[in-house]
C-alpha cells in the first residue's frame, strides 16, 4: 500500500511536470499579455517596456528556465494583473472553491446514493420515475437558469436568502443548491443503474435467506458492490468543482478559483493560470489517488 502510494506519487509528479510544461508553452502561443494588459491605445514603447518588466522579451526557453528556477524556490511569480504573488491570489480563491466542492459533493453523494438506490429497488415504480425525471430535468437544465430563477424566487421574491456574495451561512445555500443539481442527477442515474445489477445478484438472495432487513440489503450488501462506477463519477464531478464552478462564481459573486482562472486565461496572466492549474491539479491528483485506493478498499478482488 505504501509502495503503491509512493509509486503513484512519483507518477503524478511526472504528470504534474508534464502539465506545467504543456501549459507553460501552450499558453504562450495564445497571444501577447501586453496587448491585453495595456489599453489598446498604448504605444509600442509602453508595450516593449511592459514586456521588458515582465521578462516577456526573452527567448521562451529562458523564460521557462527562470520559471522553473523560481518554482524550485517555491516562487510562483507575481500576477501581472494584480501585482500580487500568484500563489497568494490562487490559494485564497482555492480555499473557497475547496470548501464549496467538499460541502456540495458530500451532500450530493449522500443524497444521490439514497435516492438512486431506492429508485433501483423498485425499477419502474412511482418513486423511480419521479426521482429519475426530476433529477434528469435538473441536470440538463442550464445552470444559469436555475441560478437566476433561484435568486428571483428566493431572494427577490420571498426575501429568504441573500442574492449573492459571502459572509453568512445563508450565503452558501443558493450556490450549493444550484451546484448540487447536475452532479446529483448524474450520480443518481449511475447509482440506479449499478444498483439494478447488484440487487439482482445471488448474494442479495443469500442476504434475504438470512433474514436481513431490506435497508441493510440495499445499503450494505448491494451498495458496496455497486459503488465502483459511482465513486468514479463522483470523482469526475468533484474534479469539475475543484476546477471551479464558473457560472456559480460569476452569478453569486463567489470568490472561487474558476472565474479567477478564466479571467486569468483571457487576460493571459500566465503566472496565475499556472499556479491555479498546479494547485487544482494537485488536488485532483490526490483525489484520484484516494479514489483508486477506495476501489481496492471497496472491492478486495481488485489488485494493483
Amino acid at each position, binding site marked *: 500500500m505504501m509502495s503503491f502510494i509512493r509509486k503513484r506519487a512519483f507518477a503524478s509528479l511526472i504528470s504534474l511536470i508534464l502539465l506545467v510544461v504543456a501549459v507553460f508553452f501552450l499558453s504562450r502561443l495564445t497571444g501577447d499579455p501586453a496587448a491585453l494588459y495595456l489599453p489598446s491605445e498604448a504605444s509600442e514603447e509602453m508595450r516593449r517596456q511592459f514586456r521588458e518588466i515582465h521578462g516577456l522579451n526573452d527567448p521562451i526557453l529562458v523564460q521557462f528556465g527562470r520559471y522553473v528556477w523560481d518554482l524550485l524556490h517555491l516562487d510562483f511569480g507575481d500576477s501581472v494583473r494584480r501585482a500580487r504573488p500568484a500563489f497568494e491570489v490562487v490559494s485564497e480563491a482555492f480555499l473557497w472553491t475547496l470548501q464549496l466542492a467538499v460541502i456540495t459533493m458530500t451532500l450530493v453523494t449522500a443524497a444521490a446514493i439514497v435516492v438512486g438506490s431506492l429508485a433501483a429497488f423498485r425499477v419502474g415504480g412511482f418513486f423511480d420515475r419521479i426521482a429519475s425525471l426530476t433529477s434528469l430535468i435538473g441536470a440538463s437544465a442550464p445552470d444559469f437558469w436555475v441560478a437566476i430563477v433561484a435568486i428571483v424566487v428566493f431572494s427577490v421574491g420571498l426575501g429568504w436568502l441573500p442574492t449573492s456574495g459571502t459572509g453568512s451561512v445563508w450565503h452558501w445555500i443558493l450556490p450549493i443548491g444550484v451546484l448540487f443539481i447536475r452532479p446529483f442527477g448524474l450520480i443518481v442515474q449511475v447509482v440506479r443503474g449499478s444498483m439494478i445489477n447488484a440487487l439482482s445478484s445471488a*448474494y442479495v438472495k443469500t442476504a434475504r435467506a438470512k433474514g436481513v432487513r431490506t435497508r441493510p440489503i440495499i445499503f450494505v450488501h448491494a451498495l*458496496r458492490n455497486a459503488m465502483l462506477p459511482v465513486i468514479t463519477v463522483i470523482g469526475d464531478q468533484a474534479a469539475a468543482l475543484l476546477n471551479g464552478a464558473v457560472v456559480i462564481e460569476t452569478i453569486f459573486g463567489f470568490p472561487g478559483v474558476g472565474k479567477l482562472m478564466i479571467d486569468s486565461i483571457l487576460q493571459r496572466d500566465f503566472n496565475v493560470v499556472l499556479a491555479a492549474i498546479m494547485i487544482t491539479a494537485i488536488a485532483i491528483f490526490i483525489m484520484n489517488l484516494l479514489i483508486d485506493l477506495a476501489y481496492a478498499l471497496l472491492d478486495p478482488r481488485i489488485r494493483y
Partner: protein
Amino acid sequence: MAEPMLQVKNLSVEFHTAAGTVRAVKNVSFDLDRGETLAILGESGSGKSVSSSAIMDLIDMPPGRITSGQIIFEGRDLLKLSASERRKVNGHKIAMIFQDPLSHLNPVYTVGWQIVETMTAHGMSRPQARAEALRLLGRVGIPDPEGSMGKYPHQFSGGQRQRLMIAMALALKPDLLIADEPTTALDVTVQAEVLALLEELQQETGMGVLIITHDLGVVAEIADRVVVMNAGEVVETGDTRQVYRNPAHPYTRKLIGAAPGKGAMHDPLPSAEPVLSVRGARKVYGDFAAVEDVSFDLMAGETLAIVGESGSGKSTVAKMLLRLEEPTGGQALWKGQDLFAMPERQLFALRRDLQMVFQDPTQSLNPRMTVWQLITEGWVIHPGILPRSKWKARAAELLHQVGLKPEMAGRYPHQFSGGQRQRIAIARALALEPELIICDEAVSALDVSVQAQVIELLDGLRKSLGIAFIFIAHDLPVVRDFADHVMVMRKGRVVEAGTVRQIFDNPRQPYTQALLAAGLDPDPDVQAERRAARLAMAAG
C-alpha cells in the same frame, strides 16, 4: 399424529423466458417432520433447487411465478406471510445452503462479517455472534478460523466456500435446514464431518433437514425418507431403504442403476512420451503456500485424477497450468515448451489445446451470452475448427451429448439449473476439440445418470481422439471409473500418486486410506452397518 413441520402442497412454479413459459415445478408435494431428514433426489434440472427456493421465498418474481400450491411451515402458509414476518422466519427458523457457494457469498465483505450478520440480523449481540462464528468455522473444518474470519470469499477454495455457507446456515440452529447439494465440493473426509455435524445438530435441536443431493451415498448415510423428482414432478416418495431396494418408478431405477464405482478400473497404457510434464510447481499467496512442489506426467489419451482434501490446492494447480494464476515456481512442459515461463503471446497459440471446465459453472459462463453464443464462441475465436455452416448441427450434437436439449440454445445461463450450467461448460470445452481438458469438479453437480452419460462421453473422446484429462474430483467412485492415474493431494503437497489400481486397491499413505475409508456406499444397509461400526468405535 401431529402436523408435520413443513408441508409442501401442490407447488407449481413457472418461469417466463423469451421463448415462452418454462414450467419448472409441477404440482410438487412433500412433507417433513421435526428431526427428520428428507432427501430430494432427481435429475439435474428437475426442479429441486426451484422448489426449495420457493420455500425460502427466493424465486425472483417475476420472471418466476408460483402458480399454485401452499407451503405450510409450523401451521402457517409461508406464501402468505408479510415481508417482515418472512424476515423473522428466514435465517432464523429456516436456513438455506445454496448450491452455488461462490456467487452466493458477497464478494466484498469478509466471510466473518457475513456469518456474524446472520446472527446479528436476528438480534444477537456482535461479540457473541463473533464467538459463535469462530466456533462454527472450526466445526466445519475451515483451517485457522481466526484468520479466515477476515478473508474474502475469493480467497477460499470451492469446498471451503461451501463450508462457509454451511456455517452461515447453521449459525442460528434453525428448525429447518434446506441444504442444496451441500457436499458436492467436499472431499469425503470433510463430507463425513459435515454430515456428522448435521446429525449432531439434528439430535440437539430437533432440526428438520431437507437435503438435495445426487449422491446416493449421502442419501444412504443420512436420509430418513426420499423424494425423487424428474422433469418438475415428484415421481416417487418413500422410506430410503425401501426406495433403494424396490424402486417403483423407472427413473428411480435408472438412477440407482447408474451409481458409479462398479465398473472395471482402467489399466493405463505402458509409458509413452508425456504430453505434459509438471515439475516442482509452486504457488504462494502472501505467506501461505497453496501448492508446494507438485510434479506429475501426463500422456496423451490418459486421465490423471487429482483427489484430495478440500483446499489442498487442486484448483490452484489447474489454474496455474492455464496461467490463470501466475505460478510462483516450477515448470510445466507441454510438448517440451514451458507453460509457466511462456510469454502471453506465445501462450495464445496453445490456448485452444488446453481447456478447462471450471469448478464454479455459474461464474464461468458469461451471463450475457446465450448457450448458443457460449458454445460457438470457441469456433469464432478459432475459425479453423469448424465451418460456419456446420455450427448448428455440431452445437446441437454437443448439447445432446451432455444431456441438454438443443432447443435450450437460445437461453441464458441464469435460466438453467446448477447441473445444467455445468453441462454447458463441458460442452463448451468439448467444442474446441482440445488435446487436454482439465475438469475441475466437472461432474459433481450432476445426478448419477447424467453423470454416467457424461463420463462415458469423455471416456469415448479420450479413446477416440486421444484427449488427455486432468480430472479433479472428490467423488472417488467416479474417479475409480474414469481415471488412469491418481494423484492424492493434501495441504498443497502430493501425498501419493500412482495408477488407479495402486491407489484404490493398495493405498500406502494413511491419508489415502482414510479417504477411501470415508467413502459412502449407495446402499442404505451397507451404510447403516458402517455407521454402527463407527459409532461403536467412537463409544469404545
